[in-house]
């Protein structure tokens, strides 16, 4: 919430009497800006230079390097000169040979669909109900929110205790002896439930903030026009929340692509839990199939660019106008 108000463009400043003087002053200052002292120029250079360098070297260089390395074959030993350039062979192998790739893509898609169709709407629904401020809503809100502060690794462990074949609560309550995380036919669903435990709370808190940010007079106007709660929400409140809706969608997509920790804690991404992210990890570190892992990363990057570009064009709409 704190962010919403300061983000608005600075309101027109000064009362009527002072106003005529203002523009002149600004022009003057802008003129002075060009005559920055040498010290100031150095300070500004370092100010933006150091962070940009870090961002470039540790984020953008590796991202581009992934693309380049994906056309080569290298085991990470010795100098870069030992890379054999093999064109699109890595991609061919991924698409045509690797038995894990298509299952991984399928699982990633399923992950996305589940978060988008089940977890995210549930978070939105909880937020809408909590926004009504019925008794106890503050307490309930804290309960739904609690998993958001836990690491996904911890959530993996907690749900392992729930889903354990013999000692888990789920089997204990249901009287079954299913190996929820071990059975390759169902472990993805079990992992999705564990993952949603956090995702729902995250979406809920974002959406709740969004709801509080909607101008209350919009609702009042709708109510005066005789709209009921449902109409007010879908026709007035929901469209007014377009920015937050986009953020929620983008977070859902990105979380689905980033999914890693829970699956890794469960079984390192094998046996029914393959994801693109775990495949990259197994091929990149000690295994050192650098080109192959990079090609997988490029595929993930290409998919990720869709939500990233969507979000950025939304977030920087004003500046570009």
């Amino acid at each position, binding site marked *: 919430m704190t962010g919403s108000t300061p983000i608005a463009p*600075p309101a027109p*400043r000064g009362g009527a009497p002072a106003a005529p003087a203002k523009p002149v002053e600004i022009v003057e200052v802008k003129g002075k800006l060009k005559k920055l002292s040498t010290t100031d120029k150095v300070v*500004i250079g370092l100010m933006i230079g150091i962070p940009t360098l870090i*961002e470039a070297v540790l984020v953008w260089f590796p991202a581009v390097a992934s693309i380049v390395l994906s056309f080569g074959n290298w085991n990470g030993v010795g100098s870069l000169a030992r890379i054999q350039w093999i064109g699109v062979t890595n991609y061919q192998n991924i698409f045509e040979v690797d038995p894990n790739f298509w299952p991984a893509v399928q699982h990633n898609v399923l992950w996305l669909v589940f978060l988008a169709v089940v977890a995210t709407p549930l978070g939105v629904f909880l937020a809408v109900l909590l926004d009504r*401020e019925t008794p106890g809503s503050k307490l309930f809100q804290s309960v739904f929110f609690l998993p958001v502060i836990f690491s996904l690794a911890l959530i*993996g462990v907690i749900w392992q205790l729930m889903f354990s074949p013999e000692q888990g609560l789920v089997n204990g309550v249901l009287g079954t002896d299913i190996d929820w995380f071990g059975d390759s036919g169902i472990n993805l669903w079990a992992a999705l439930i564990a993952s949603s435990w956090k995702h729902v709370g995250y979406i809920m808190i974002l959406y709740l903030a969004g709801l509080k940010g909607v101008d209350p*007079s919009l609702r009042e106007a709708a109510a005066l026009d005789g709209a009921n709660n449902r109409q007010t929400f879908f026709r007035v409140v929901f469209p007014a929340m377009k*920015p937050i809706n986009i953020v929620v969608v983008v977070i859902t997509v990105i979380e689905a692509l980033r999914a890693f920790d829970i699956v890794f804690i469960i079984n390192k991404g094998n046996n029914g839990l393959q994801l693109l992210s775990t495949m990259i990890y197994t091929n990149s570190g000690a295994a050192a199939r650098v080109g192959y892992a990079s090609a997988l990363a490029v595929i993930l990057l290409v998919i990720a660019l869709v939500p990233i570009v969507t979000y*950025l064009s939304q977030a920087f709409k004003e500046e570009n106008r």
Partner: protein
Amino acid sequence: MTTPAAVIDPEPQARGRRRNRRQNYTTPLTRGSRASRIGITVFLGGAAFLWIIPLAWTIYTSLRPIDYFKDHSYFSIGGTYDFQNYVDAFEQAQLLKFFANSAIITIPAVILTLLLASLAAFKLSRVAWKYNVPLLILFTAGNLLPQQVLATPLFQMAKHTPLPETISDSGSFINTYYVVIAVNVAFQLGFCTFVMSNYMKALPVELTEAAQVDGAGIWKQYWKIVLPLCRPALAALATLEVIWIYNDFFWALLLVQKGDRLPITSGLNNLNGQFAQNYNLLAAGALMSALPVLIVYLVLQKHFKAGLTLGANKG
């Protein structure tokens, strides 16, 4: 919505409709019938009950000795309840070392991230330059990339960048705290720069203009004028970043191969293997790993929630 809300002025008409209901503009006008409100409360209560079960079961498991579970069933009630598992897990898993590793990584990483992000944000939001927006987009986009896209080259870079053996026993950046700190900083820099620059943009221009006329240099404008005003945003970001960097699993897992150098979140993976036969110990160890974030969250709840929505409300 097309209607600018301010034009309507709901005051006179709305007052009559409010009847006896408390109304303070942040609550919805139509609060629904009594029956629907009771229905909502019951539904939310039920959902919250379901929600707390996994955590409650973990806590319950952690308080029970495994022997009692084995003799009776895992779902038994009665017998011993104590903190012995916590003591045992703490000692056997050398949790103290993992906690220390987490602190060594998290504290400098958060400070550096906020410092560098606020520097970049000051330049990008308050010193005119035609490349400000493209650069800000580059920062923001960097944070949105899936970590795994950068993983392979980063690992090779760390492995092939030599460090004197006196500093790193691996002779490179692999297995060092430095590389984990650096990568966490780089990755979080984008989000923090984005948030800080939005915040700084909203501060009145006159503040720095006046200082400039009085002869204050850029550094003074940043350090003495703008930064102190950014305290709320810094507090919110700090809370958020402590939790995010502390919770990081992937970077440490990728770049640290020595088990005893891992931060506690990634160390959980080792714990998981170590205590595979004793879930009661595992539960205690896992819960302890969450204690620092739980404390941060409970103390700074307000800042944390503010931080989560700082980036989201832009648009």
